[in-house]
C-alpha cells in the first residue's frame, strides 16, 4: 500500500508539472516558449524558496539599461516610476539637476564632476554618424550611463588611446583616462541603483560586493562573518563575478542555512549556480540553451518567476503536502483498525477485511481523492496568490508539513480508526442485527467497517478540499459509489469465478441490515464532527492570513467581483510596465553557448574578460575614434 501511495505521489507531481507547462501566463509569445519543467521532483521546493540567486545581466534586465535616477552629494534626482513615453536612451527626466547647475547650487561642482565622470569613465566607443553619435558599448549599463550624461549635456564624442573628448554644457574639455578608477565605483553604484529599483528593495539594506572582494570574502577565515553579514541583508548584489564564484556563493549559502535556494540565470556563466542551487531556473530562448539545459525549470522571462514561485510553487507545495498527509491519514485509519481487531482475535494476524478489498483500497476506492487534492486543490485563486505575496510565507516556512502537522494527522487518524472500529463492533457484538434473525460473521463486520472507512476517508478529503471542482465531487462521491458497486458485484461472483468465497452473499445481508444504514450516518459523523468543529473554532478564533484571503475572495464573489476587478486593475498596470520594458528590449544576444564556452568554466557576466593576453579594456582604450577617416574603406 505504501508503494502505491508513493507511485501516486510521482504521478501527481507529473501532473503538477504538466499544469505548470500549460500556463499561458508563463508562455512567452516572443520566442514561442512555454514554461517547462525538466525535473519531476522539485515542485514542492518551488514553494519553499527562501534565498534567490539571480543573474543580473540578461536575466533581470533583459539587457536593457536605463539611466533613471542618481544621487549626487546626497540629493536624489529622477523619479522611481517610469515615465510613460520611454525613449531608447534615457528615461531620466529631472529638471532640478540642470537647474541646480545653472543656479550655482552648493552641490553644483559635484554635479558637474559626476556628469563628467559619467561621460568619461567607461569603455564605450563612439561612432559619428552625421550629427548623431552612436555609442557602441560592450555592456548596456555603460551605454546607458553615457547616454544619460549625453542627455544632461555632457556628450562623449571621441576617444583616443590616451584621452577621451567630451562636450560639456558650455565648454569643451579633454579629460584624461586616469579618471577611470573613480568611474568604476560610480558605475557600480549607479548600476546597483537600477537593480535595486528592479528588485523593489531599499538600496540601503543591500550589500554590494564585487568579484575581487568576494574572492577574499569567501576565503576560509572570513567566510563565516561574510555570510552572517550577507544573510542579514535583504539583498546582496555581487558584481563582476565569475561563474565559479556564483556557484560558490550559492553553495556556501546552501550549506550555511537550512533553506531552499533558487538560482536563476540565462547564460552559460550561470550554469554552475543553477546546478548548485536546490532549484535551478533557466531563462530559455535568450542566450542559448546552456542555462535551460542545466536547469530544473525553464521559463521564457524573468518576470514569470513571480508566478512560478508565488502561484505554482505555493500551490505545488500545498498540494503535495496535502496529498501526502491525506495518504498517511487514510492508510493509518484503515490499518490501525487491524490493530484494534488484533486485540479481539488473540493477536493472530487475522484481518477484518477481505483481502482484495484491502488491496484495492489505495488503488481504487480511495485513489481519486488524493489526486483531486493534489491536482485541483487551490487554497486561493491565482490572482490572490499574486496580490498577497505574504501567502508565500506559509509554504516558505513549511507550515503545511512539519512534525507537528504530521503527528496531528496521525492522531486524528488514530481517533477516527478507534471510532470506525469500535462503534460498529459494539453495535454488532451480538451478531444478531438482521431482521431475519440470522447470525453474522466477522466479514460482515469487516465490510460494514470498510464501508464506513471509505465514506469517512472520502468525506475527510472533502473537508481538506478548499476548492470543490467538479472533479472533487466526482472523487468524493464517486469513490463511495465505486466501493458500493464493487461490493455488490464482488459478493456474487463465487463460485462462478473462484475467488472470495467468504464474500458470497455479504452485500445482500449488509445492505439489508438496518444497523448498517443507521451506522452509515452515525459513524462518519462521529468521526468528522470533531474535525469540523476544530477547524471552525480555529478559523474563528485565530484567523490566518490564508483564511482571511479566502474570505475576501468569497466576499468579492458575492459583491459582484469588486475586489477581483480591483486586482485585475492592478495587474493591468503591471502589465503595462512589463510591456514597456519588453518594448525597449534589444534583440537578444544570439549564438551563445557554443562549444567554445562549454569547456571553459570562467567568464564574466559583465562582458569582461580576464586572463586574456590583451584585455578588452585595453583594446577599447586603444581606439581612436578621431581617426576614423583612415579606417573607412
Amino acid at each position, binding site marked *: 500500500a505504501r508503494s502505491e501511495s508513493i507511485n501516486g505521489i510521482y504521478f501527481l507531481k507529473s501532473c503538477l508539472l504538466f*499544469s505548470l507547462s*500549460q*500556463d499561458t*501566463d508563463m508562455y*512567452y*509569445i*516572443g*520566442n514561442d516558449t*512555454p514554461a517547462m519543467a525538466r525535473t519531476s521532483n522539485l515542485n514542492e521546493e518551488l514553494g519553499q524558496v527562501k534565498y534567490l540567486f539571480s543573474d543580473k545581466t540578461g536575466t533581470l534586465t533583459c539587457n536593457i539599461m536605463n539611466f533613471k535616477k542618481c544621487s549626487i552629494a546626497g540629493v536624489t534626482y529622477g523619479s522611481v516610476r517610469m515615465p510613460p513615453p520611454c525613449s*531608447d536612451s534615457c528615461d531620466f527626466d529631472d529638471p532640478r539637476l540642470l537647474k541646480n547647475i545653472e543656479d550655482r547650487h552648493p552641490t553644483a561642482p559635484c554635479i558637474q564632476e559626476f556628469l563628467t565622470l559619467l561621460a568619461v569613465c567607461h569603455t564605450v566607443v563612439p561612432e559619428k554618424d552625421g550629427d548623431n553619435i*552612436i555609442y*557602441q558599448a560592450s555592456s548596456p549599463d555603460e551605454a546607458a550611463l553615457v547616454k544619460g550624461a549625453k542627455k544632461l549635456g555632457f556628450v562623449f564624442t571621441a576617444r583616443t588611446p590616451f584621452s577621451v573628448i567630451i562636450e560639456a554644457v558650455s565648454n569643451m574639455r579633454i579629460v584624461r583616462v586616469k579618471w577611470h578608477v573613480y568611474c568604476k565605483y560610480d558605475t557600480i553604484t549607479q548600476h546597483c541603483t537600477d537593480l535595486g529599483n528592479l528588485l523593489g528593495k531599499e538600496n540601503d539594506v543591500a550589500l554590494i560586493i564585487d568579484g575581487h572582494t568576494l574572492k577574499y570574502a569567501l576565503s576560509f577565515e572570513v567566510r563565516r562573518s561574510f555570510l552572517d553579514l550577507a544573510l542579514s541583508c535583504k539583498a546582496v548584489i555581487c558584481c563582476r563575478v565569475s561563474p565559479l564564484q556564483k556557484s560558490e556563493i550559492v553553495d556556501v549559502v546552501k550549506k550555511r542555512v537550512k533553506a531552499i535556494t533558487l538560482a536563476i540565470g540565462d*547564460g552559460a556563466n550561470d550554469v554552475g549556480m543553477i546546478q548548485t542551487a536546490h532549484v535551478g531556473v533557466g531563462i530559455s530562448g535568450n542566450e542559448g*540553451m546552456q542555462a535551460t539545459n542545466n536547469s530544473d525549470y525553464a521559463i521564457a522571462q524573468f518576470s514569470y518567476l513571480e508566478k512560478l514561485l508565488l502561484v505554482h510553487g505555493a500551490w505545488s507545495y500545498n498540494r503535495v503536502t496535502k496529498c501526502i498527509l491525506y495518504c498517511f491519514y487514510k492508510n493509518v485509519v484503515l490499518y490501525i483498525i487491524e490493530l484494534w481487531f488484533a486485540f*479481539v*482475535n488473540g493477536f*493472530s494476524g*487475522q484481518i477484518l477485511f477481505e483481502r482484495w478489498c484491502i488491496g484495492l483500497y489505495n488503488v481504487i476506492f480511495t485513489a481519486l481523492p488524493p489526486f483531486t487534492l493534489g491536482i*485541483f486543490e*487551490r487554497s486561493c485563486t491565482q490572482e490572490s496568490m499574486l496580490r498577497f505575496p505574504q501567502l508565500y510565507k506559509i509554504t516558505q516556512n513549511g507550515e503545511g508539513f512539519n512534525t507537528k502537522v504530521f503527528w496531528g494527522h496521525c492522531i486524528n487518524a488514530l481517533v477516527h480508526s478507534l471510532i470506525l472500529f469500535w462503534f460498529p463492533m*459494539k*453495535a454488532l457484538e*451480538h*451478531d*444478531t*442485527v*438482521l431482521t431475519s434473525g*440470522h447470525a*453474522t460473521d*466477522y466479514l*460482515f463486520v469487516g465490510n460494514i467497517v470498510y464501508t464506513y472507512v471509505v465514506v469517512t476517508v472520502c468525506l475527510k478529503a472533502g473537508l481538506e478540499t*478548499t476548492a470543490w*471542482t467538479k*472533479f*472533487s465531487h466526482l472523487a468524493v462521491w464517486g469513490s463511495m459509489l465505486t466501493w458500493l458497486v464493487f461490493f455488490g458485484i464482488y459478493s456474487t461472483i*463465487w*463460485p462462478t469465478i473462484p475467488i472470495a468465497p467468504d464474500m458470497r*452473499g455479504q452485500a445482500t*445481508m449488509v445492505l439489508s441490515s438496518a*444497523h448498517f444504514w443507521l451506522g452509515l450516518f452515525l459513524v462518519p*459523523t462521529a468521526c468528522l*464532527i470533531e474535525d*469540523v*468543529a476544530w477547524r*471552525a473554532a480555529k*478559523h*474563528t478564533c485565530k*484567523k490566518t492570513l490564508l*483564511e*482571511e484571503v479566502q474570505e475576501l475572495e468569497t466576499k468579492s464573489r458575492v459583491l459582484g467581483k469588486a475586489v477581483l476587478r480591483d486586482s485585475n486593475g492592478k495587474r493591468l498596470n503591471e*502589465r503595462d510596465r512589463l510591456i514597456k520594458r519588453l*518594448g525597449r528590449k*534589444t*534583440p537578444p544576444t*544570439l*549564438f*551563445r553557448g*557554443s562549444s567554445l564556452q562549454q569547456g571553459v568554466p570562467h*567568464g564574466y557576466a559583465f*562582458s569582461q574578460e580576464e586572463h586574456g593576453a590583451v584585455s578588452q579594456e585595453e583594446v577599447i582604450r586603444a581606439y581612436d575614434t578621431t581617426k576614423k577617416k583612415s579606417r573607412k574603406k
Partner: protein
Amino acid sequence: MFRVRPLFRSRFFPPPLSPPHVPPSSPSSLSPSLWRLQPTFASRQRPLAEECPASSALQRRWLWRRRRRQRRSRGSCQGQPAGPLGGPPASRGAAPRGSMAMNYNAKDEVDGGPPCAPGGSAKTRRPDNTAFKQQRLPAWQPILTAGTVLPIFFIIGLIFIPIGIGIFVTSNNIREIEIDYTGTEPSSPCNKCLSPDVTPCICTINFTLEKSFEGNVFMYYGLSNFYQNHRRYVKSRDDSQLNGDSSALLNPSKECEPYRRNEDKPIAPCGAIANSMFNDTLELFLIGNDSYPIPIALKKKGIAWWTDKNVKFRNPPGGDNLKERFKGTTKPVNWLKPVYMLDSDPDNNGFINEDFIVWMRTAALPTFRKLYRLIERKSDLHPTLPAGRYSLNVTYNYPVHYFDGRKRMILSTISWMGGKNPFLGIAYIAVGSISFLLGVVLLVINHKYRNSSNTADITI
C-alpha cells in the same frame, strides 16, 4: 571569453562568412564568437538596411530572419500584451518602431517574402487557454467558520437525539433471555456433564419467562472465549470442497492442515472450523400447570443465509445415496458421526446441513451467538412463548470448560433492526448530544470573536 566583441564594428556587418549558413533559431550550430556582437551593436542603434544593401539573395534571406526575430519580440512587447498576462492580443504591428522595421515592412510586402508574423507559423507551442489547463476551473469554496457550521451542529443534534431515542426504545422492547448452561458451578444441573466419561449426558435447566415473547422467536446458542476469529482457525477450511467439488472432496486444500487427512483418508468437511462444530442438542419444553412438559416446536431449516444454503454449500455430485457421494472420505476427528448423518432430512444433510452452515460462518468476536432454531409464531391470538416456566434439555457434547469458555442458550424476538442491542441508540444520543454541545461552544466562540478580525493585514 568574450561575450560581446566590440572589435567587429558595424561597418563589417554583416560579416561575410556565416550568416546564410546559420539558422538563427538554433544557437548550437553556429560559428562562434564572431557573431555574438551583432545584436548589441548594430541591430537597433543604426538604420541597418541602408548600410548593408541587400544585394545578394542570401544576405537578404539572412536579414529577413534577423528582422523577423526582432519584429517578433517587438510585436510581443508592444502590440501583443497577451504574452505574460494572457490578455487578448491587441493590434499587432501597430507603429513598428524604428526605421528598420519600416523598411522591412515595405520591402517584405513588395518582394512577397515569406510570412513572418509572430503567430504566423501554424504550429505554436502556446498552451491551450482552457479552464482546466489554466487551473481556473469553477469551484465551490466553502469556508468553515463558527458562524457557518453552527446550524449543521444543531441540526445534527436535533436529528440524532430523537433517532437515538427511537432506536433505544426499540431495542428495549425486544424480549431476550440468556441461559448459561456451561455447568462449571457445582450447583448447576449440567455440572455432571463436565466429565468426559458420561456419554451421552443430558441435563435439564429450568427457567421462567416473566413476560411472553410475541412474534417469531429465535433461539441462539452463544459461546464465550471461543476465538473463531483466530487467523489459523479462519482459514482452515476448503470452500471448494464445501461447494461440492469432487476433486477437492478427495484432495482437500492444504489450508485444512492438520485436519486435512485422517488415517490416510481425506476428511470431509476438512479443517479446524468444521472439526470444532458445535454439537450440543437443545430442546425446549413449556412446563404447564400439570407438570407435564409440552415440547416447543423448533424449526431447524431457514437458520442459514440463503446464499450459503443454496449457492455456497453443495453436496458432492453422485447418486441418491449421500453416503455414496462421500465415499472415500472420513469424518472430522472430533465428530461423533459422519457428515452424511447429520440429519435425516436429505435436504438438510451433508454439507447443506444448516447447523453446519451456520457454524461455518466464523464470528468476529470471541463471544458470539449463532442461530440455532426458529420458533415460529402460530397465531396472532396467542403469544409464541407465553410467560411461564420452561425447561431446557441439553444433550451436552461440546466441552468448553477446558478453555474457560461459556455456553449459553438465548431466546430473542427480533425487531426491524435485529436483536436487542442498546449500543446504537446510546451512540446516536451521545453523538447528537456532543454535536449539540459543540454547537453551543461554537455559538459562544462566534459571539466572542465575531467583531474581532485582523483584516488590517490585507487591504483590498
